[in-house]
């Protein structure tokens, strides 16, 4: 996100950092890449971020009051990985990004025994490295 927010007034950058979540990033980054206009991208991102933040606070309140009423057998927590899956699929745009995802997926299972969910960070780095290697090999060929 940093390259896109560069050049904006510091106040905007600090607000953006506060609103930066995985979902806001996924919704905003596409807009930044497609429209060359930085201000339009930034205002889109801030709008998304504020809406997500408000919804999040509101949902927390509902969860606080009604959370215990919903039976755990409904497996509603599965919505979280589904949401990330919906964000993930459009990022698999070419061969290198698919290799990055594949490597990260294998690594995260292989490294599952690591403490403190370090497997997540390590697998992410493995995936990024795999993607970059694949990109370099394709370019030199």
């Amino acid at each position, binding site marked *: 996100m940093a390259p896109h927010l560069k050049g904006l007034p510091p106040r905007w950058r600090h607000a953006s*950092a506060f609103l930066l979540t995985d979902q806001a990033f996924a919704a905003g980054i596409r807009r930044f890449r497609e429209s060359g206009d930085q201000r339009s991208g930034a205002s889109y991102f801030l709008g998304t971020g504020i809406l997500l933040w408000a919804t999040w606070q509101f949902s927390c309140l509902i969860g606080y009051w009604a959370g215990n009423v919903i039976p755990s057998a409904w497996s509603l927590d*599965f919505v979280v*990985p589904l*949401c990330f899956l*919906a964000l993930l699929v459009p990022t698999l745009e070419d061969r290198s990004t698919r290799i990055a995802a594949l490597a990260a997926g294998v690594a*995260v299972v292989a490294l599952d025994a690591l403490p403190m969910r370090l497997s*997540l960070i390590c*697998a992410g780095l493995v995936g*990024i490295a795999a993607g*970059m290697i694949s990109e370099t090999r394709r370019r030199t060929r």
Partner: protein
Amino acid sequence: MSPAWTWWIVILVVGALNYLSRLSFIALFARIEMPPLVARALRFVPAAMLTAIVVPAVVFTAPATLVFSYTNPKLVAALVAAFVAWRTKSATATMMTGMMALWIAQWLLREAG
């Protein structure tokens, strides 16, 4: 110090650290030029990190219990959802069909088992 106070302090400190970690890159690369290698790596962050988040939530039915078969309803549902995400590019459709696929798979497993 009362326990309630301790909790509030923990919440504020964790919140501040979280915010600063997000601000760090934004603030840093507003000042200095991003090294080309880092700029190249950024392209793979969403694909790699999102996969690393999703995969464990799908293939583990319990801590350290890897299930790679149709008896894992989460795996079945995730495959359905991935297909829907690919075809529709809609997060809402993905989450709704994914949840429905999960419930159907769980129900079928109960009926069969």
